[in-house]
């Protein structure tokens, strides 16, 4: 029997955007307040899991055509790449640098290479969590 779950679908459509906004906030707030790549990645993964719970797995795969194993690989590559990027400038592995920039709408902001490292962590967490959950949900493996 096809159970009518229009309330859940309608609400999830709004709530996913709130969760993704919070994830991006947590990611960017990580340097000066609680948050960071790990938490941001987990919150993004929870938004995706909410979509998977509410809609069909094929439908979500059509909407988010991302191979999460590749996302995890890209994250690890990015995190290691920021480490080797500092070697290219003649300093030790994983040395981080930061500089103040003037961004038109946001004003004076400090941009650091730590953010790229954290982006790698976030992508790795999203990829690993989603790979685990989707492969358990599918059951027969691929």
């Amino acid at each position, binding site marked *: 029997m096809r159970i009518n779950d229009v309330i859940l679908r309608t*609400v999830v459509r709004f709530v996913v955007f*709130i969760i993704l*906004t919070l994830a991006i906030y947590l990611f960017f707030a990580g340097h000066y307040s609680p948050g960071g790549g790990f938490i941001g990645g987990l919150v993004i993964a929870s938004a995706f899991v909410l979509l998977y719970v509410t809609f069909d797995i094929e439908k979500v795969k059509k909407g988010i055509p991302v191979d999460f194993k590749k996302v995890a690989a890209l994250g690890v590559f990015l995190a290691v790449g920021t480490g080797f990027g500092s070697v290219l400038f003649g300093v030790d592995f994983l040395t981080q640098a930061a500089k103040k920039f003037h961004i038109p709408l946001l004003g004076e902001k400090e941009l650091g290479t730590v953010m790229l490292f954290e982006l790698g962590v976030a992508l790795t967490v999203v990829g690993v969590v989603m790979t685990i959950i989707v492969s358990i949900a599918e059951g027969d493996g691929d």
Partner: protein
Amino acid sequence: MTILINSVIILSLLLGTFFIVMTAVGLVRFPDAYTRAHAASKSATLGVLFILIGVFIYFWQIEGTYNSRIILGIVFIFITGPIGGHIMARAAYFSGVKPTERTVRDDLKEEYERKKRSL
């Protein structure tokens, strides 16, 4: 002014705590799953809402930081709290949990039987 703000904060926190205690009392005293879902989803949502409003006013007026995450949390709880109660009550109904004997009418039953027959 400070006295007024403090009393608003105290009133809000007290109301929130009152509603949450009422939720606990309802969960213990109500007879079946549906009335308990009613108590848990409505009253707990309102209780958490009042407590978050009190916390927001405290940080805004006393500490001087405008914390928009609390506003987002209020909106989020307000949207998702009742939905959680709804989904749990539906899951209980479809898995065959009987309502209490004092129930006088069951509107969902005919529809559920009709859907099951038409399958």
